[in-house]
């Protein structure tokens, strides 16, 4: 069977480009810059809200989250909850307001976690933990079989996954909730993974802190995240995670846990919290 020679195809593609180019109408660099400023400003507003909530109204949040018995995140469309009070965005100071500013819309829920390891079922991942309770068996190169590594404790489990473009490059990453089982419980982490023949860890979104026989063990700076519950992906690439301050199995009442929603974003080198309370301290 014949095929085109390079010169033939280059000529045809060149003709195609010349013809198509005549119809291209660039919306303009200024529109791209205005849109980018809006997105950046929105993220800064979210970060400001997160900081303000942490400093000013933690007790209110805790009361509100105690009242919330739900164990799952709200479904789309979402409305601002008690952890995301409405604020007026600060006025731009460095540049004048654009004449045709794109509408500022809150990010929508576009992805939800699915139980099970999904396409990571038999993946090999290189994991690392900051939690000292994480067994060495949960660190380093871990090879999964049907989402599990290890036949007894300690063992590593991929509990759920979700696809979301977290770094804005147009390709979806995989978020995975990893469980390092050391007894009935164990450390958890939510990680972002670049998929492919050899999946690689982009970064850790959030990791649980320590716990003891009472379901929690407070670090010096106050109670930390002990449980990572459900999580959803938002249209701006951020991840909203429901976290709790206590394991509630095995005789520990479910109502004793405080639940919060915290939102995380990729900043180019790591995940940072951009919304929600930053502490369980009253």
């Amino acid at each position: 069977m014949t095929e085109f020679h390079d010169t033939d195809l280059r000529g045809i593609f060149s003709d195609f480009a010349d013809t198509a180019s005549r119809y291209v109408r660039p919306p303009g660099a200024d529109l791209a810059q205005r849109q980018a400023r809006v997105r950046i400003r929105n993220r800064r507003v979210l970060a400001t809200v997160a900081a303000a909530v942490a400093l000013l109204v933690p007790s209110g949040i805790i009361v509100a989250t105690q009242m919330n018995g739900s164990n799952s995140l709200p479904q789309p469309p979402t409305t601002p909850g008690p952890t995301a009070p409405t604020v007026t965005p600060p006025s731009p100071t460095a540049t004048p307001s654009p004449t045709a500013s794109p509408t500022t819309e809150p990010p929508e829920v576009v992805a939800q976690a699915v139980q099970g390891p999904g396409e990571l079922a038999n993946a090999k991942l290189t994991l690392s933990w900051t939690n000292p309770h994480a067994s060495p068996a949960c660190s380093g190169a871990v090879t999964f079989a049907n989402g599990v590594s290890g036949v007894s404790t300690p063992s590593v489990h991929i509990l759920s996954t979700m696809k979301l473009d977290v770094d804005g490059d147009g390709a979806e990453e995989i978020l995975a909730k990893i469980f390092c089982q050391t007894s009935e419980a164990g450390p958890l982490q939510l990680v972002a993974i670049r998929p492919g023949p050899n999946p690689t860890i982009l970064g850790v979104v959030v990791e649980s802190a320590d716990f003891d026989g009472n379901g929690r063990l407070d670090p010096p700076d106050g109670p930390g995240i002990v449980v990572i519950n459900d999580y959803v992906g938002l249209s701006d690439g951020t991840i909203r995670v429901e976290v709790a301050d206590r394991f509630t199995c095995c005789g520990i009442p479910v109502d004793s846990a405080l639940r919060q929603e915290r939102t995380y974003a990729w900043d180019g080198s790591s995940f940072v919290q951009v919304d929600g309370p930053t502490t369980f301290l009253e």
Partner: protein
Amino acid sequence: MDDFTDFYAAQFHGVTVQVFAYTGDLPLAQDIAQEAFTRAVMRWEKLRSYDDPAAWVRRVAFNLAASRWRRGRIAAAYVRRQRAEHVEGPSPDRVALARALATLPERHRRAVILHYLADMSIADIARQENVPANTVKSWLHRARTELAAQLGDLREVSS
């Protein structure tokens, strides 16, 4: 005029035409290119130091196009917000290449566009697609064969 404006002016047409060849939809290609450049300006301080920032924009644009090709989720909302007027484009009858490209498997189509429209080397395509160079050579061979079958008359015109 800043350097992003210069960069946009120099690259927008090329990226759009490449995505048009990939999707066969010029208005969509234009929207995708604009979205890719918007994402680029958000990280321009970093991208401007790259040897070839256009490669980043092109990769994002193709990622977006592939994603939308499969699911068409964000595009519709973006188009509703951004498209101020109907965008004219060459009809498929006038651009036989676009019609022929649409029949190729997705990866063959992407490889042949990156090679012949974006002037990317086989090694660069292999790196971007995370496959061996020989795989890219195979994709290009199959794409050239299929295109020859469909565009034989154009070859005579071209030569």
